[in-house]
């Protein structure tokens, strides 16, 4: 018998955790002498009440959806891919090469091409740690995190020595040709009468992220590959019994994970910056871990968690802009959210289970 209904496990637990995190954050804000209610209002106003605020929230969320899905897919195979950051960086290089050196006639084709390159580059960067894990038993957490540093250095080298236009001071690639620029929500949804998403970076790759959610759902729960990834993740001994090759699953799951993390570069590099810059990932690869954790490795959960973190990012920027609350505090709030939804999950679940149990036994007694 299940201890509590699945819906409660999936919604109540994260919601209560979130509430606790918010409460604690409020205390912290109080402690530094600011008004938590005003701060929350500012965050909500800045991130959700205006369409341009939404434009930023959704832009960040797009990144987090990709990296959250990447962590989730790997996690279903019990692989902890914390190399999303590096995979996305390398994918940025792929996107840049694709946009700079292929003469695309139209943005839609460029988008497809950039997705392909981003996926390939991201997957390739995940392949080496995956292979080392599968064949040599080198722990994937160690190798992927080291590969983040290598990716950063590779990117730096490429930008400074190869892609940087002559005489430019900044380690960045030239601007991508106009034809590759992706339409933003402003381009798509604004009319002269009603301007929307004014100068916000959210662009068409948000829909690619939504499609990725559907793709991951179908892959994990509806295909035999997904079935194999999941059963390998739950029990390697059982996978051996079934005849599922651990090497194959480790490599394939990491390739998919790396490709998903890589897709994020389409949003940041092709969609927003329209050129390749050094720190385009902005830690989204790591936020993906929190997003996957909070989203229970399910695409719907990842989507919601990504929106929440998008809100925190954008709301936090507003706070830093308009109040004396330092930007670092946003990191504290994010950390609290991660702590409560991820690490202290059991603290909320156990009492909740007891409540449901008590309710049930009362019902049975009647």
């Amino acid at each position, binding site marked *: *018998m*299940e*201890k509590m209904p699945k819906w409660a496990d999936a919604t109540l637990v994260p919601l209560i955790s979130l509430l606790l995190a918010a409460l604690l954050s409020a205390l912290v804000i109080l402690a530094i002498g600011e008004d938590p209610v005003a701060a929350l209002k500012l965050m909500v106003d800045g991130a959700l009440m205006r369409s341009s605020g939404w434009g930023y929230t959704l832009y960040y969320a797009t990144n987090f959806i990709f990296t959250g899905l990447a962590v989730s897919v790997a996690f279903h195979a019990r692989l902890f891919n914390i190399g999303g950051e590096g995979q996305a960086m390398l994918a940025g290089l792929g996107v840049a090469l694709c946009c700079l050196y292929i003469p695309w006639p139209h943005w839609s084709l460029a988008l497809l091409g950039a997705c392909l390159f981003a996926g390939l580059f991201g997957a390739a960067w995940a392949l080496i740690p995956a292979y080392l894990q599968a064949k040599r038993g080198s722990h994937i957490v160690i190798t992927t995190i080291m590969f983040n540093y290598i990716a950063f250095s590779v990117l730096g080298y490429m930008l400074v020595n190869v892609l940087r236009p002559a005489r430019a001071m900044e380690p960045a690639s030239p601007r991508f040709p106009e034809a590759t620029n992706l339409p933003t929500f402003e381009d798509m949804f604004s009319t002269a009468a009603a301007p929307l998403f004014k100068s916000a970076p959210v662009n068409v790759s948000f829909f690619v992220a939504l499609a990725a959610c559907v793709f991951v759902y*179908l892959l994990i729960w*509806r*295909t*035999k590959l997904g*079935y*194999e990834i*999941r*059963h390998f993740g*739950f*029990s390697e*001994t*059982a996978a*051996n*019994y*079934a*005849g*599922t*090759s651990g090497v194959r699953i480790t490599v394939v799951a990491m390739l998919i994970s790396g490709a998903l993390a890589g897709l994020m570069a389409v949003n940041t590099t092709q969609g927003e910056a329209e050129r390749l810059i050094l720190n385009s990932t902005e830690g989204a690869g790591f936020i993906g871990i929190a997003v996957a954790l909070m989203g229970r490795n399910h695409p719907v959960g990842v989507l919601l968690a990504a929106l929440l973190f998008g809100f925190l990012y954008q709301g936090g920027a507003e706070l830093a802009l308009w109040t004396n609350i330092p930007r670092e505090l946003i990191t504290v709030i994010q950390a609290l959210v991660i702590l409560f939804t991820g690490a202290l999950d059991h603290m909320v679940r156990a009492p909740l*289970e*007891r409540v449901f*149990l008590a309710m049930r036994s009362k019902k049975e007694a009647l």
Partner: protein
Amino acid sequence: MTEPAIELNGISKSFGPVEANKDISIRVMPGTIHGIIGENGAGKSTLMSILFGFYKADRGEIFIHGQKTEIPDSQAAIAAGIGMVFQHFKLVENFTVLENVILGAEDGGLLRPSLAKARKTLKELAEEYELHVDPDALIQDIGVGRQQRVEILKALYRKADILILDEPTGVLTPAEADQLFRILGRLREEGKTILLITHKLREIMEITDTVSVMRRGQMTATVKTAETSPEHLAELMVGRKVLLRVDKKPAEPKDTVLEVQDLRVRDGKGVERLKGVSLTLRAGEILGIAGVSGNGQSELLEVLGGMQTGTGHVRVNGQEIDLTGRFSDGQSRRARGIAHVPEDRQREGLIMEFSAWENTVFGYHRDPAFQRGPFMDNAKIIEDAKGKIERFDVRPPDPKLTAKNFSGGNQQKLVLAREMERNPDLLLIGQPTRGVDIGAIEFIHQQIIALRDAGKAILLVSVELEEILSLSDRIAVMFDGQIMGERLPDRTDEKELGMMMAGMSTNDTDGAVA
């Protein structure tokens, strides 16, 4: 009248929603052996853990020799004179017997005086209870039977006068078990009180004075052993009448299905675990592999089932199968008509986090019959699972329930349903009834016999000698990675098989049909 050595009064313990012990009261008189019998999950181990201070009871009182005693931890239990021999020994493998005995019971900071004292005490104990073990032998060099004696010595060295033994015969050969019972008999004569936890009815009948039966966390009865019978105890355990014997017709073996020649397997450390096994198995017969666990039976199943690599020759229906390389995995075996009920259903045979229906295609999930386009045809699999659940009487009959929420017996039925309904030519089946309640054992045995009668070849591995004897048409005994010989079940007995299981060759070849 003397005080009871142990008196438990209204002990209750819950783990979250599960009530493992409900209002349990027993009285055990000193100088007796008291059996506690019950199916897996009946709450026996929880009760003993409470008595030994691993868990704290939610309610209830414990009296030791009439004294109300609090047992918050194992130190307190030892101080109260309680010793425990666990199913899985708690010994340091590369320490000597002597070192293990004093571990945690040293006097002062210097080892030498403690060791000398222990050596003397051990000698006295050995003579008093016939517990002979070489004090200077390393644990890793002595057999499990002796290791168990070390556990008993450890308890006695700590002046225990109440001994709890948890499933003590699980790892022993019949001969070793007999020796253990003799030792327990000596301990009883010397006035020690013994609590024996087991699920084997035979042991209860053989050695105990009184027996308590547990079912679903409750104590259903406490009776004098002399006044009861195995059938009655089984009924008390399960809650209904059970058939303890298996009815079957004589086998009608047909063509050879499985031929194994000089099969060898090395484990990860390079130690040879199968040392040249040869056997044949024909359609319509059950070949039982008897042996103490750890003598190569697991490796035999694993290499045949594609979970291990090996060398040698294995032919199925006359065709050689690969023992290494790409085509030696479980998928390739299934393609050859080999089905496998693995020894450990929780770690191998099932994904405990998957629902029942997902588990009913585990290993066969690539079968095109279960696919629709690029996707798995979940609706069809669920429909198929419903049928399997119904035919194998899996309870509760809910295909959406997660595997871990089924009882051991019903989990096993899920595995059996999956493997048997593939209609394999060869069924490998390991420990079919381990941890399975008596009621389900009856059903599982009937299914195995039915599959044999349908003309399938069945290779059965079990550490339960009774099971081997009652199901097999032929019995091969394994010891140290080799087959000691074959016997016919009606021309041999537990004693002879027990000797072979201990590695002693019997000269009686009259039953062999190799």
